[in-house]
């Protein structure tokens, strides 16, 4: 136990003396500070501008050309349908309108041939450009209104029928995926980054000790289990401290600037994480980190050269990336509780991300959570002990990288 503490302390010191580790942490904290203080700075700058009395319309311009007889209702309906645009009616020819769009005088333009057909002109068509759909909806409303007026309904009544407002309200009894999406995404991504980066670090660390032959002395001075657990827990702690520093500073800076962020739904949802979810995050982070770090450490011990590390860790990294993508795909498909996710949330290598996502974005019965965590704890301890055995065998094998069969054989015998 004393040995374990010594190793933990030594390895942890390595992180806090590592300039890259400190550098990255400080850089991220500064970056977050910059983002969080941004609205405040913008308000200060904008405040100055409003004093000068100049107010420029920042909205893009849209040209619309139609039969002059229809100009008024069309303008009215297009203005209502495109609240983000300044809509101007024009009589220019097609070439002039094309030129105006091409040279940025207008962002886009509609030329209406009759009641039921139009051409949409835009310079670069964005992936999310919905203007054509909106325009056809608007145009069909113009058509409906004209039809109603022709049928004897007064223009006012027709407008009332067309523009009727429907009030709808959604009550989510479970969880709102929209609200949870962002913080779940951020947490899963943090989990992904930290495990990949630190896992590789553990593997490299072990392989370095082996290739520098410090291992010869280490293995005769300390128990392999102490070595493995000391190393892995030290990197887990370092990762945790880094995450806490980054998320903690984000939370602090957000609260300092809360007033300036106003009603930004995304930002608000990120910082309104329920406390019990943070605890789940911590549990799954620690267990997920440990189970992967143990595997990375064991693989690191079987490599005889530092250059071999990248190829040796590939299967683990692949497994982890697949687990990550299953979660991300399920999150963006909106079907969190699909069958793959349900299975994955009980497999120890995938459950840290899958189960956590399910808890965050859907309603999971408590016993499923308990079973998943129990399986994960047992497997983590099992993998830990196994990896210490592989480590003990692996570190004394030099020369060619041993095959999986050889390792299993050697571990079985020891």
């Amino acid at each position, binding site marked *: 136990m*004393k*040995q374990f503490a*010594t*190793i933990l302390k*030594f390895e942890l*010191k390595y992180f806090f003396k590592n300039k890259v580790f400190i550098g990255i942490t400080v850089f991220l904290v500064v970056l977050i500070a910059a983002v969080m203080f941004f609205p405040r700075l913008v308000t200060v700058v904008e405040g100055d501008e409003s004093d000068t009395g100049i107010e420029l319309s920042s909205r893009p311009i849209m040209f619309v050309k139609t039969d002059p007889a229809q100009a008024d209702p069309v303008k009215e309906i297009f203005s209502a349908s495109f609240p983000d645009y300044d809509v101007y009616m024009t009589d220019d020819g097609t070439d002039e309108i094309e030129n105006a769009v091409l040279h940025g005088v207008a962002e886009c333009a509609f030329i209406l041939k009759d009641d039921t057909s139009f051409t949409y002109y835009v310079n670069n068509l964005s992936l999310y450009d919905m203007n054509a759909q909106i325009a056809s909806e608007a145009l069909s409303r113009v058509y409906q209104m004209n039809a109603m007026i022709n049928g004897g309904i007064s223009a006012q009544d027709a407008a009332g029928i067309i523009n009727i407002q429907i009030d709808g309200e959604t009550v989510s009894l479970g969880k709102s995926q929209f609200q949870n999406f962002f913080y779940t995404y951020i947490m899963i991504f943090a989990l992904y980054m930290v495990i990949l980066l630190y896992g590789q670090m553990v593997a490299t660390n072990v392989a370095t*000790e082996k290739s*520098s*032959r*410090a*291992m*010869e*002395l*280490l*293995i*005769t*001075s*300390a128990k392999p289990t102490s070595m493995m657990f000391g190393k892995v827990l030290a990197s887990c702690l370092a990762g945790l401290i880094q995450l806490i520093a980054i998320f903690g500073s984000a939370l602090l800076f957000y609260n300092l600037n809360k007033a300036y962020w106003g009603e930004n739904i995304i930002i608000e949802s990120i910082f309104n994480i329920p406390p019990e979810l943070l605890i789940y995050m911590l549990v799954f982070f620690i267990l997920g980190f440990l189970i992967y770090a143990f595997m990375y450490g064991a693989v690191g011990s079987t490599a005889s050269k530092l250059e071999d590390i990248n190829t040796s860790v590939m299967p683990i990294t692949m497994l982890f990336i697949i687990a990550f993508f299953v979660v991300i795909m399920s999150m963006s498909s909106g079907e969190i509780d699909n069958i793959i996710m349900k299975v994955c949330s009980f497999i120890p290598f995938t459950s840290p991300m899958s189960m956590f996502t399910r808890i965050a974005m859907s309603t999971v019965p408590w016993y499923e959570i308990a079973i998943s965590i129990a399986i994960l704890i047992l497997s983590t301890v099992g993998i830990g002990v196994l990896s210490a055995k592989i480590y003990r065998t692996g570190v*004394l094998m030099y020369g060619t990288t041993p095959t999986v069969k*050889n390792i299993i*054989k*050697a571990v079985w015998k*020891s």
Partner: protein
Amino acid sequence: MYLELKNIEKSFGEKKVLTGVSFRAEGGKAFGLLGRNGAGKTTSIRILMNVLPANSGEVLIDGKPIDYKETKIGYLPEERGLYPKKIIIDQLIYFAELKGMSRKSAVQSIDYWLVRLGMTEYRNKRLDTLSKGNQQKIQLITALAHDPDIVILDEPFSGLDPVNAMLLKDVVKKQIAQGKIVLFSSHQMSYIEEFCDSIAILNKGVVVLHGDLHQIKRDYPRDRLVVRTQTPEEVRADFKDACTIAEDGSLMIRLSSPEEKKSVMTRLTENYDIDEVKVFEPSLNDIFVEYAGDATKEA
């Protein structure tokens, strides 16, 4: 205090590495573990240090199974290496703490050894800024700082200049004088001959020779004479096939039996101009080649 390995057997998969290895090393004396590359020395040391489990056999201290918590072992591995990028004092303290020392006594002891080996100026430097010989001295501290009962030195003199070799000799002699068990493994026979009272020679995982070095030399068949003479040609003509020329130019006469010694000596001194005639005593090198080298032994 004495250390004893009894009937150690070890195989890696199908390959048998150690077969019934037994030897005994006494406290206050140096013991030489010899053998060619791949003979099983390092494996024996690893089993003795509990890094590898033996298939069967025992490691005993004073006749009782060794308790690794009680018996402290210091080890200078043949493959040298510490953390190249770390500060020397940091890693020395780390290794001493791993061996169970408190931080305070670790620092005390390490500072003593840094002074003793003339390495104080490097205390707060990174290891990779040191020359190979100096790195080796640092590594020696990891083997000695925790005041071990058993000191295992694998090729301790390789890479050291004569001054440092002398320094190390003094250190080792003091360790022996303190009553510790000092176990040497080396290919440099002159050092083994200088230090070791007893030896064991391993050949392909089998102890082929074990015992007190002086006794081994004395028990060696006394059936050869070394002759230095002014008239080697005449002597060679006289003794024909029994007489060969040794590496240093002297003559070696093989006797048909040790009892023949007196008559042959008389015959030589009475008939030829002899500067020196003596019974051949093998050097450790000769013994090693004979026992560890397969070709020689079969011949």
